[in-house]
């Protein structure tokens, strides 16, 4: 499907996930190439998070395969909430993954302090999560994941709970890290602007149940990027419009489908019947 991508770190084929009822996602294909930043957007409840959970082994799929170009231990998972171990200090929380990998305690602590400093939390190592602000906890959670030097970073709406200023700042910091280390990233978000500013490609998931992959668009904005400048780039506006159409068209057809399913006499006005999916732009252009 993407012959020019040198190596695919994440290769998902025919993935279906369900919790008893009809599958919430069905037949999902998704590739993330080495060094690529892919965002996955879609309506809430469409099963975006489930895809990440399957990749990390937290969830068993109904069907489909996930091929990883990295070991499970090389995956970093940044969760939506910032649940740190409340009984461990910031330093202990960051060092936890290192300790699990049998890094000697003193070394793990030193590396934890280094990452805390890097993320602007120098001197906060001895604080417990209850003594930190939401933004600080999020930084600790990022440090916890980055300290393991993951080769594949999965993020589930990591900044949704933060206020706009903190959010923009942390997004920028993370972007700098990703670009510096050529990290491979799959970001789940419902923020279209965030998706465009951060990614090389944006994949759009349709409406559930039985949500399918709707489109995939390349982001033609050069790197390294500044989050705020990226929004001024000529490619930003048209892509935002395209993504918006992808998502709202999904809405309209879902409404039409549900109306048809309930046998309503008022047939939808012409033109909302789902046609062929919009052309999928190749995301190789900017690689």
């Amino acid at each position, binding site marked *: 499907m993407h012959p020019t991508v040198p190596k695919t770190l994440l290769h998902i084929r025919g993935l279906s996930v369900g919790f008893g009822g009809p599958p919430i996602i069905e037949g999902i294909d998704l590739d993330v190439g080495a060094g690529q930043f892919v965002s996955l957007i879609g309506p809430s409840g469409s099963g975006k998070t489930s895809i990440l959970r399957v990749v*990390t082994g*937290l969830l068993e799929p109904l069907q489909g395969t996930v091929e990883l170009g990295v070991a*499970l*231990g090389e*995956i970093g*998972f940044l*969760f939506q*909430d910032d*649940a*740190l*171990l*409340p*009984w*461990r200090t910031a330093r202990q929380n960051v060092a*936890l*993954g290192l300790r*699990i*990998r049998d890094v000697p305690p003193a070394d793990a602590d030193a590396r934890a302090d280094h990452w805390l400093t890097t993320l602007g939390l120098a001197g906060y190592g001895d604080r*417990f*999560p*209850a*003594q930190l602000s939401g933004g600080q906890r999020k930084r600790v959670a990022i440090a*916890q994941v980055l300290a*393991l030097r993951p080769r594949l970073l999965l993020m589930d709406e990591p900044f949704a709970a933060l206020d706009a200023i903190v959010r923009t700042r942390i997004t920028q910091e993370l972007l700098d890290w990703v670009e510096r280390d050529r990290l491979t990233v799959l970001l789940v978000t419902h923020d279209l602007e965030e998706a465009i500013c951060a990614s090389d490609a944006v994949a759009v998931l349709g409406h559930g149940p039985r949500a399918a992959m709707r489109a995939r668009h390349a982001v033609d904005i050069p790197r390294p990027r500044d989050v705020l400048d990226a929004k001024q780039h000529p490619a930003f506006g048209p892509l935002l419009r395209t993504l918006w159409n992808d998502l709202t068209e999904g809405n309209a057809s879902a409404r039409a489908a549900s109306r048809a399913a309930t046998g309503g006499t008022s047939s939808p006005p012409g033109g909302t019947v789902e046609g062929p999916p919009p052309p999928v732009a190749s995301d190789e252009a900017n690689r």
Partner: protein
Amino acid sequence: MTGTTAGPAFRRATALMVLLAVWESLSRIGWLDPFYAPPPSAVGRVMLDLAGGELWPHLGATATAAIAGLAAGLAIGIVLGFAAALLPRLAELLEPVMILLNAIPRVILAPLFVIWLGIGLASKLALATILVAVLIFFAVFNGIKEVDRRLVERVRTLGGGHRVLVREVYVPSVTAWVMGNFKVAVGFAFTGAVVGEFVASSRGLGYLLQFAQSTYNAALTLALIVIIMTFVLLLFALAGRLERRLLRWRFS
């Protein structure tokens, strides 16, 4: 207990002093019958007498039964709670028994323990132990069942296996639950020891209380009640310090 600032502690002490003064005055002017309600000064004299020597072996016996019962009850409750939470088969066996034991006033087992174990320390220890063990069992069992799933997932995605999960998530989570019940457990342990001594014994504060009651000695009864209260409050203070130390991550 929580009078850490001078203001409330001072007001409470003053209120207590006023109460004692009123009680003493009412006794002195003859409105209270000293046979039923001996004045604080009389109770104080009895306490001093007791502290002169007679008290200590009895206090020692009760404290031994209570503290050993507390330790044994904690150990048994924690082990059984962990085992039941991790082994569903065992939970099926244990939970009904524990629910039954939890539902009844467990002090009714005291006569049975005397028949089984005699009137010595063992029957008091057993009663204190079972009072505490059932309480702690449920604290641990629920603590593990209601552990924050998000934390389990965090540790798993960081690569943590079963051992790491137990050390980093389950044990701290259970510690919080157990500490939340620790003061109640201290009270239960003393209840078990003293009630066990009521039923049949040759020493202990419960034995002294029994003796005071049978001789209609209200001053001795009140003195013993004050002594037991003081001792339990002392243990509460120690438990509070332990709690603040173990759960310091909660206090920001």
